[in-house]
């Protein structure tokens, strides 16, 4: 087989990352070498993924790769396999792209830290773990990759171990993460006991027809395991701790990439392994979990006073959107959910990088201490605002496009099924979106606008490399927002179709006709329709731009906004000072976590209850995990 044939690209794309990690361990002392290796490895990984775009996304192929060419014999898949369908490729592209951007950002961001070689090693391990997870065709390898990425993520969370809470966060994440990983392992092995194979495709063929108590419990175990990886409620406090403590470039990966791997696992589990999503009860479960995550985390975010913790809670809130939409089990819903997953990776990456830029320059992320940075860091401010508008769903940025699709998908589902519960999801999503906007207005006011504290007089703009990384993400936010039609056609629609093409997935791996012979009742091919996919015409956005341009130029011509006629403010007496109603000018910043007092006052009981609940004691969080597991098992035994 030709070494350059497409077949090999998935494994290359994983291996370059691990190889890079290995090389940096050995030769990482040299600064140039480690930067070159890290950049090269992450770019190569992205390149190999991008090369698969045409055959997989456009031509609808599925690429199966058997390690050592050990193809299935006698109807049993013994070898280790990689399988790349459109769903895997969608996540693979997303992951490798963001990993590359985070790597570009790291170079200058981490330049003042100790132990930088170890950082890059762990960084590449984390990236490789996620890539391996999404491309793997084997349940046990998924477990291995989950362990690798959990380990790398824990170590990176504790990387700046002198920072406040980093060790604590890492320990909590390790404990609950390990409970999750153990769940995945136990679930995997229980499935193995039933079907005697670990290959995803073969399991997908064998399990749905042979549900027993053991497989149902295994389902619950795997489900909770992947929920831990996606940090869904009730695992959200860990996300907040881990994202808050880790370096910004790692927060990007944890929130943008690691949570996606959890979502990917949930999709594979529910749509492929068990094909349980045809059940209304399963849809209810996923959508309910998504909506609760969406709402609880956005309210938690409103109460935060740390920039990165706030962003972390928003991550989970947005993951809630994704899960609620994916759980609808309509092609349109899945397409919308994946679109939002992609957008979330882009805008949350941008926001975390902006938070990192603030931390890099000021040394703090406490909303109560910052203020007025927009005059010192104008580019960061603009980039942050783009991210904030995207996540709040302000048109024409990408969050709007995907949220719009999610609203339509949930509302359509409500109308189709006549179930008023789905309508509540639509309302919840719409209100959550406004709450998201509120908390970003809070950040904008507390960090970038308002008054500049004395100690930050000498703050400078961040170096070009960091701005470049943010700029790329910001541009992608805008592009994916302006071209929703292209994104859905070339990225999310093929992936959504792949979710429903379970039979093809199995046959590609195990040989044609395997699915039909092994499955007692092959799933009916679901009709994939995008009829209600509302995509607005780009002409309206052209009009928007035109109006904005016209307005600016009219005022500019009128001379009011021109630099000469607007007096330059320095040394002209009190005229250009702020208005204090005649009082003496003093430093008075309005910001911090009590900004929306009027809102929080009405919800004070809820907020104090939530504050008590998130006690920060690791035993409590483990207890939540155990309770969630118990509930999941009971639910799976009843409904599956």
């Amino acid at each position, binding site marked *: 087989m030709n070494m350059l044939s497409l077949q090999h690209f998935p494994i290359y794309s994983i291996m370059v990352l691990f190889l890079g990690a290995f090389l940096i361990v050995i030769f990482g002392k040299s600064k140039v070498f480690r930067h070159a290796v890290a950049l090269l490895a992450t770019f190569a990984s992205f390149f190999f993924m991008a090369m698969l775009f045409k055959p997989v996304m456009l031509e609808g192929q599925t690429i199966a790769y058997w390690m050592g060419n050990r193809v299935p014999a006698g109807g049993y898949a013994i070898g280790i396999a990689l399988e790349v369908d459109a769903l895997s490729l969608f996540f693979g592209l997303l992951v490798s792209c963001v990993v590359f951007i985070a790597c570009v950002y790291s170079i200058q961001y981490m330049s003042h830290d100790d132990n930088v070689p170890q950082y890059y090693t762990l960084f590449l391990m984390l990236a490789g773990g996620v890539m391996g997870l999404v491309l793997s065709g084997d349940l046990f390898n998924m477990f291995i990759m989950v362990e690798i990425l959990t380990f790398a993520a824990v170590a990176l969370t504790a990387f700046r171990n002198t920072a406040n809470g980093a060790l604590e966060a890492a320990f909590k994440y390790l404990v609950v993460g390990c409970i999750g990983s153990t769940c995945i392992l136990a679930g995997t092995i229980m499935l193995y006991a039933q079907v005697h194979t670990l290959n995803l495709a073969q399991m997908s063929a064998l399990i749905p027809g042979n549900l027993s108590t053991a497989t149902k419990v295994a389902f619950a175990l795997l489900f909770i395991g992947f929920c831990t990886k996606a940090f869904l409620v009730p695992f959200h406090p860990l996300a907040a701790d881990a994202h808050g403590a880790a370096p910004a470039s790692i927060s990007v990966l944890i929130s943008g990439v690691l949570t996606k791997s959890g979502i990917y696992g949930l999709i594979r589990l529910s749509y492929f392994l068990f094909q349980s999503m045809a059940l209304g009860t399963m849809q209810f479960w996923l959508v309910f979990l998504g909506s609760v995550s969406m709402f609880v985390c956005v309210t938690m975010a409103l109460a935060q006073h740390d920039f990165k913790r706030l962003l972390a809670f928003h991550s989970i809130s947005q993951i809630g959107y994704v899960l609620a939409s994916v759980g609808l089990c309509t092609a349109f819903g899945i397409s919308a959910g994946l679109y939002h997953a992609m957008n979330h990776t882009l805008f949350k990456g941008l926001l975390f990088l902006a938070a990192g830029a603030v931390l890099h320059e000021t040394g703090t992320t406490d909303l109560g201490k910052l203020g007025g940075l*927009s005059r010192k860091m*104008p580019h960061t401010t603009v980039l942050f605002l783009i991210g904030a*508008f995207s996540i709040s*769903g*302000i*048109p024409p940025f990408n969050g*709007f496009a995907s949220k*719009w699709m999610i*609203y*339509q998908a949930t*509302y359509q589902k409500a*109308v189709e099924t006549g179930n*008023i519960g789905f*309508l509540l999801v639509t309302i919840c999503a*719409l*209100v959550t979106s*406004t*709450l998201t*906007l*509120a908390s970003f*207005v*809070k950040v904008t*006011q507390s960090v970038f*606008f*308002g008054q*500049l504290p004395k100690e930050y007089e000498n703050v400078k703009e961040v170096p070009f490399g960091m701005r470049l990384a943010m700029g790329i993400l910001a541009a992608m936010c805008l592009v994916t927002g302006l071209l929703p039609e292209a994104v859905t056609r070339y990225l999310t629609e093929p992936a959504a179709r792949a979710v429903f093409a379970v039979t093809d997935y199995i046959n590609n791996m195990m040989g044609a006709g395997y699915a039909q012979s092994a499955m007692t009742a092959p799933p009916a091919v679901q009709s994939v329709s995008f009829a*209600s996919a509302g995509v*607005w015409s780009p*002409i309206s956005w*052209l*009009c*928007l731009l*035109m*109006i*904005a341009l*016209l*307005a*600016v130029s009219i*005022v500019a011509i009128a001379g*009011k906004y021109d630099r000469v006629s*607007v*007096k330059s*403010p*320095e040394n002209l007496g009190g*005229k*250009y*000072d*702020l*208005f*204090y109603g005649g009082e003496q000018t003093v430093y*008075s*910043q*309005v*910001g911090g976590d009590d*900004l929306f*007092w*009027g*809102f929080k*006052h*009405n919800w004070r009981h809820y907020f104090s209850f939530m504050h008590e609940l998130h006690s920060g004691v690791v035993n409590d969080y483990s207890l939540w995990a155990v309770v969630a597991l118990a509930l999941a098992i009971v639910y799976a035994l009843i409904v599956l």
Partner: protein
Amino acid sequence: MIIEALKYLAYVLIFPGFLFCFLTGMLLCGIDRKLVARMQKRVGPPILQPFYDFFKLCGKETIIPAAANRTVFLLAPLVGLAALVVLQLFIPVFGFSAFSNVADVIVILYLLLIPALSIMIGGAATGSPYAGVGLSREMVTVLSCELPLVLVLLAVGKKVGAATGSGLCFSLSEIVRYQMLNGSLLGKLSMLPAAAAFLMVIPGETGSHPFDAAEAETEICEGMLAEYSGAPLGVYKLSHAVKLLTMTSLFVMLFLGGIGGAIQNLILGAGLSGGAAGALIILLDVLVLFALCAAITAAAISFVHAVTARLKIEQIFKYYWTVVAALALVSLVLAWYGL
């Protein structure tokens, strides 16, 4: 291609875009001020006063505070105004809509956020503490209005969707078309609470009494506008006026769209046809729309303004999320069960 471009340019600049918004919005604002004054037994300013104010502000010096971020400070008002004008393009004038079939209520919902956002960002960019307090209140007001607004739009969407058989209708032009054929939604019993809720949302969205805690001029010196002067302030005043038009015309299209059908029947019934009839219909549409907008302004804004005192911000929130949201919810549930 060029004709097409010119057409859209005309939409954007003249009707239903910038010029139309400017004239009608300012007139509505003038009417509102006059009415409030008359209700309080004052003489009040002339109806054209908002125009005078605007042009006067444009001629004044623009002072940018030393602590402000100039780019954001100057750009924010323009972005807000642009968003409102785009929003107006999305709202059909009875049978006429600038963008056919894309007028979507979700787009409208989000575009409505932008003007509020722009005034908040602009205020925040000055660094004034008054702006900080104003921003906090403005955001809570927006949050308050959001839930009832969402419920009303979903209720209307469900009602129309159920009637047309598609089951789901987010398109505003579809909603209007349905009403032109089947009579206004205000005539349906189940939509009455939603209409009432929407009327109550109008003063909240436009920031007028008693929901103007964000701009309480006697208390926090107009909040986010405290540092604004000259042309940017004029743009904000204009935005406020256009928002009056936007909210009231949205009400007309959501609940009184049937009137458009009546006009059409009247003209076509009189034996007219062809281009002349079309032009006449649009002319009448605009006039009727303006009259209705003025009436709604009088009822929902001026009257309420004259008889109430300013609420505290936490009261505003509570009011919207209990009373108004409950009204809208009643409509939604009724529409859901096909009433």
